[in-house]
């Protein structure tokens, strides 16, 4: 059985940057759907689209070499949400065929924490912070 290991900050940052570069390479969006997230990013999206943020270039800044954490370069926003009950989200590079990352949405203990998951049509959704981390303790 494989055992966990530790990596240094430079290596963690390099690994994190390799992931976010896939999103930064093309204009990136966050698409939120209703329902439970698919088992893998390779699977087709399930549920209905709830909101999609405006596409941005260079969504993520370079990861910190001391923490392995990459943060958004700027907040994301959907100024006119479709609406629905948010369940999970995907980060997609519009130039790529598949989502790069996906995670859960909730009001607590989720990858994306919102003040509410019940999103009315035409609501404004602001993603004020989002980090991708390759932990130094693997």
């Amino acid at each position, binding site marked *: 059985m494989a055992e966990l290991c530790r990596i240094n900050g430079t290596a963690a940052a390099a690994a994190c940057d390799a992931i976010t570069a896939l999103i930064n390479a093309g204009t990136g969006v966050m698409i939120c759907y209703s329902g439970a997230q698919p088992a893998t990013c390779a699977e087709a999206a399930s549920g209905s689209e709830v909101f999609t943020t405006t596409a941005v270039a260079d969504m993520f800044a370079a990861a910190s070499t001391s923490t392995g954490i990459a943060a958004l370069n700027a907040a994301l926003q959907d100024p006119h949400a479709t609406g629905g009950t948010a369940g999970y989200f995907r980060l997609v590079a519009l130039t790529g065929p598949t989502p790069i990352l996906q995670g859960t949405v909730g009001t607590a203990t989720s990858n*994306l924490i919102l003040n509410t998951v019940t999103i009315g*049509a035409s609501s404004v*959704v602001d993603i004020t912070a*989002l980090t991708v*981390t390759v932990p130094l303790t*693997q």
Partner: protein
Amino acid sequence: MEDGDQKEEEQPEVASIFPFKVEMQGYGTVTPPADTPEKESDNG
């Protein structure tokens, strides 16, 4: 030759030593659309 064969068999296990872990955490707010004007004038 046998040594070479053994090394090839070990490769999958070497790869599995590094269970890559990625974490993601974000925060956001949802602001309902501005209320449509009440139809107060309907009574006036």
